[in-house]
């Protein structure tokens, strides 16, 4: 009997609490994670579940070009390449993000770090053209910013929530990569990913969403 009373009290207080919760009126909030920072993890998990495989990866695949093609476009006219093939995220001074799909030979690797990388030569001149960052520490927010229509800063509560999305996308992408054991120098590697560039002179640091090391 006492137990029932306590349960009823708990229910009542829970209802009272949920009754005054303020939730932004957006489509993905129907499951009502808290609107403040305490609900960020649940909201971002839901957003990833509804968008990563079904929208982000197809978007990157559809926009992806080879390194040589993109390099040619950028050398000709960076602004035109940006307008045609890039996405510049939420504002000024930010890099332009381009989707890439290519294959290259590993010429250098750093796999004993928290920020693992593979340097790939894609044009067979013996020097690295792109650096793939394999995580778990991934720099930047290229995966988020390559799809500004899908992930629109204005629809997020604040920078904190938007930053958590960037981190979650990086974690999701790097967590999905399978990197074989052993020395990879000389191996052929195929990848799909996103490169953020501020100018034609930048080093190409790619955040991959898919990676295949050929046998």
């Amino acid at each position, binding site marked *: 009997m006492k137990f029932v009373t306590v349960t009823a009290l708990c229910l009542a207080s829970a209802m009272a609490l949920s009754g005054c919760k303020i939730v932004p009126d957006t489509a993905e909030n129907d499951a009502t994670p808290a609107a403040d920072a305490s609900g960020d993890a649940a909201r971002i998990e839901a957003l990833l579940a509804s968008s990563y495989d079904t929208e982000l990866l197809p978007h990157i695949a559809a926009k992806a070009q080879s390194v040589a093609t993109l390099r040619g476009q950028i050398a000709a006219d960076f602004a035109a390449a940006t307008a045609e093939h890039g996405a510049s995220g939420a504002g000024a001074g930010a890099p332009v993000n381009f989707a890439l799909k290519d294959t290259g030979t590993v010429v250098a690797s750093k796999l004993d770090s928290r920020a693992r990388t593979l340097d790939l030569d894609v044009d067979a001149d013996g020097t690295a053209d792109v650096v793939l960052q394999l995580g778990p520490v991934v720099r930047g927010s290229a995966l988020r910013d390559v799809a500004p229509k899908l992930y629109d800063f204005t629809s997020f509560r604040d920078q904190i929530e938007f*930053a958590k999305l960037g981190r979650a996308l990086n974690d999701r992408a790097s967590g999905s990569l399978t990197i074989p054991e052993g020395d990879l120098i000389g191996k052929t590697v195929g990848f799909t990913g996103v490169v953020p560039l501020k100018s034609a002179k930048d080093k190409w640091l790619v955040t991959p969403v898919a990676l295949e090391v050929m046998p």
Partner: protein
Amino acid sequence: MNLKRRLLVSAMAVAMTGLMPSFAAAADTIAIITPSHDNPFFKAEADGAAAKAVELGYDTMVLVHDDDANKQSELFDSAIAAGVKAIILDNAGADATVAAVQKAADAGIPSFLIDREITASGIAVSQIVSNNYQGAQLGGEEFVALMGEAGKYAELLGKESDTNAGIRSQGYHDVIDQYPDLELVAQQTANWSQTEAFTVMESMLQAHPEIKGVISGNDTMAMGAWAALEAAGRTDVIVVGFDGSNDVRDSIMKGGIKATVLQPAYAQAQMAVEQADAYLKTGSTGVDEKQLMDCVLINAENAAQLETFALSE
């Protein structure tokens, strides 16, 4: 009430430029409301906005809210009563400011926010903020390298009501926490204040004399911490700040503080005025409401190029 308002406006409008016959008849005035100019960052913002407004032919009404949301609300009343055409605002609290901006919007006056966000969209016309997370990651990476990826450190946090305090701390930790040999032994707010940071740093040093580094949420707190470290003869401690102030630039060039992260405050304020001008003339800014501006790492290599929150090429 009206008299009080007028007195307040006269007292606050310390830097009014141009000729305005009376507040009520303000024809084309832009109000520029920021925290206290004691912090050079906010002074640079206000100066940048005022310079651009004058260049575009507006009068300006420059006010400071001292990070007091009530005072900010009164300043909004004053600006609305004065009939300003637009408000450029670096606000006094992400939640508390929503009502003030709404009040201006209801009076038909658009607000253009800089530096700090509010927790609602669709009320202000623009919210242009530095990409604090990206900047904090730059500062965090530099701090990790300076620390040699190991050692005990302390963190000075900004004002809790300001989203920027939380986002910078998160950016720092998303990088630093990846290194298991870096140990956070003390973390405390100094509310963006130089004097508070001095006191907090003194007590942190007493409790944890073994600390090797201090990461600070802004430059004024980094300056306060550095002064306390110098007073204690602990100039071996690595300090990294955030903002890119001339004070910290000078300290970096003298081998004191090791690094900071530049927020393009001057350019940001100018951009807000340009968007206000476009909005007043065409009814649209042509850009999204919320916009991020990337930050730049400042250390001994490029400190000499820094002047008043702008980096020369």
